[in-house]
């Protein structure tokens, strides 16, 4: 499903990531652990095709990312990769519902209002569907961000530091949410974090910058 080989990522002369080999099968849940600055976010960006590696090859579901470029790469990402960025980045001028509908629209898929409604229902956000992002609590906003990431039933679900600044109870909830949603669409889940509390829940772990 996911295969990386010989990855080197440099900014100028500085090497920020070196990963010789990494592979994940479909439906597996992986934890990428590492201190800040160890290249976790860079790794997620590489897998999502938001960055191109300085060296090495990345394949997702048989698609070699280097073969795609421009709008085709953006479109491939929209259809195959769900991303929950650390800062969530909901679109502030759109309602919660429209934030979800943005995902199929921008990926060039047909608008699936039923899917959006059922996700909002399942994530306990039905009351908030017309709210603007700034009216949401952090927990609600995170649920919206996850719902947006799984709108298009991606093959790959990526989450960057989903438990940062959360207490233990909310930390558990956030990880539950990601694992449940990844499970529902059969997506491979990759969670990048420096949070040791997450360790116990994942038997597949990749440690960076050791």
């Amino acid at each position: 499903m996911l295969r990386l080989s010989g990855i080197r990522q440099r900014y100028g002369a500085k090497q920020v990531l070196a990963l010789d080999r990494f592979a994940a099968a479909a439906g597996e849940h992986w934890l990428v652990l590492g201190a800040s600055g160890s290249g976790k976010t860079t790794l997620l960006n590489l897998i999502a095709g938001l960055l191109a590696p300085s060296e090495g090859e990345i394949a997702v579901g048989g698609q070699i990312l280097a073969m795609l470029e421009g709008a085709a790469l953006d479109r491939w990402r929209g259809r195959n990769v769900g991303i929950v960025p650390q800062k969530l980045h909901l679109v502030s001028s759109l309602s919660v519902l429209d934030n979800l509908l943005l995902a199929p629209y921008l990926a060039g898929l047909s608008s699936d209002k039923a899917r959006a409604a059922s996700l909002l229902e399942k994530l306990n956000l039905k009351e908030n569907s017309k709210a603007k992002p700034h009216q949401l609590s952090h927990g609600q906003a995170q649920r919206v961000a996850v719902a947006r990431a799984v709108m298009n039933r991606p093959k790959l679900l990526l989450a960057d530091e989903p438990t940062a600044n959360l207490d233990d109870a909310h930390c558990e909830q956030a990880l539950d949410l990601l694992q449940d949603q990844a499970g529902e669409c059969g997506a491979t889940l990759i969670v990048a974090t420096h949070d040791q509390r997450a360790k116990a829940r994942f038997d597949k772990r990749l440690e960076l910058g050791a």
Partner: protein
Amino acid sequence: MTLAGISLAYLRARPLATALNLLLLALGVATITVLLLATAQLEGRMGRDARGIDLVAGAKGSPMQLVLSAVFHIDAPAGNIPLADALALARNRAVKKAIPLALGDSFRGYRIVGTNHDYPAHYGARVASGRLWSGPMEAVLGAEVASASALAVGASFAGAHGLGEGGEVHAEEPFKVTGIFASTGTVLDRLVLTSVESVWEVHEHAGQPAGGKEITALLIQYATPLAAAMLPRQVNATATLQAASPAYESARLFRMIGVGVDVLRAFGLVLVLAAGLSVFIALLNALEDRRYDLAVMRMLGAGRGRLMSLMLFEGAALALAGGAAGIVLGHLLTELLGRALGQARRAAVTGWTWQPAEFWLLGLALAVGLAAALLPAWRAYRADVAPILAEG
């Protein structure tokens, strides 16, 4: 969920900036629209009033005044000319048609013109009710005079001396309305026509010295194009007459007005450009606020071209809305202006007509909006997503 929907959501999210931009654009476009409509109608109206009149002969003085008083009926005549001289000129072989005009009185601010039946025929006027004048003290009303005075066929009215309101009333010499003209869209609508003899009669009874008979002006149509080279000089060589060309004098008038029109048009353009600058700054600021949103859209699958068109669409939507509002506003203002001028019973304008140039105006607004959106759109196109998503 469409590109347009997203753009509009952003515009709604900044109501103050959006309203300011719309207002600036609308004011600029409205200014130019008013000028377009007013000058086109004024030129059209003057063209219709002067059509087929090659030369005006009248008392010596300013040729512009002669044309304004005898053709457009918006100025007082400089004086009268002896009937004998006018008749001599009318018999000239270079003259195809000569229409006499005797001015001097008015009815509620509308001029009473003594003339013959050639004058309404020249403007293709049709009698809507009643008949043309034939006997003494019979008069036919122009369409606007009839509707403003509410006089019907058979009614009587008294003329007042002079061409403005408030002159001495010739109450002992009432006119009788024998007919009413259908509207012609020319100066005829604002005139009361009667025979030259009736005008003389009023003034003889009013105790003015009869002396030799006089009229005010002669409207002349040339028999041949050659007459244009020779007739004006002949007329001006006489002791009592002067000739003026309506075409030349109205062109001269428009050249004088034209300076003011150009200044106003430049002012309108400056407003439109200022609006463009304001849209530019608003979009550039919005881009600063929106770099995360744009990065997220890339993350969700939108290509660079998509983001660029989003910004361009926003500029275009603002410009088109502002331009359309400006054109509507321009029409409303022109109509109000026309009504205000209508009170003075001068060449009135209406806002309920269209000029093809207005489409160009909309095009100009659109071009300004797109130009203003170009740099922000380019920046959105160039933005590097990964670092923007990582900060926050």
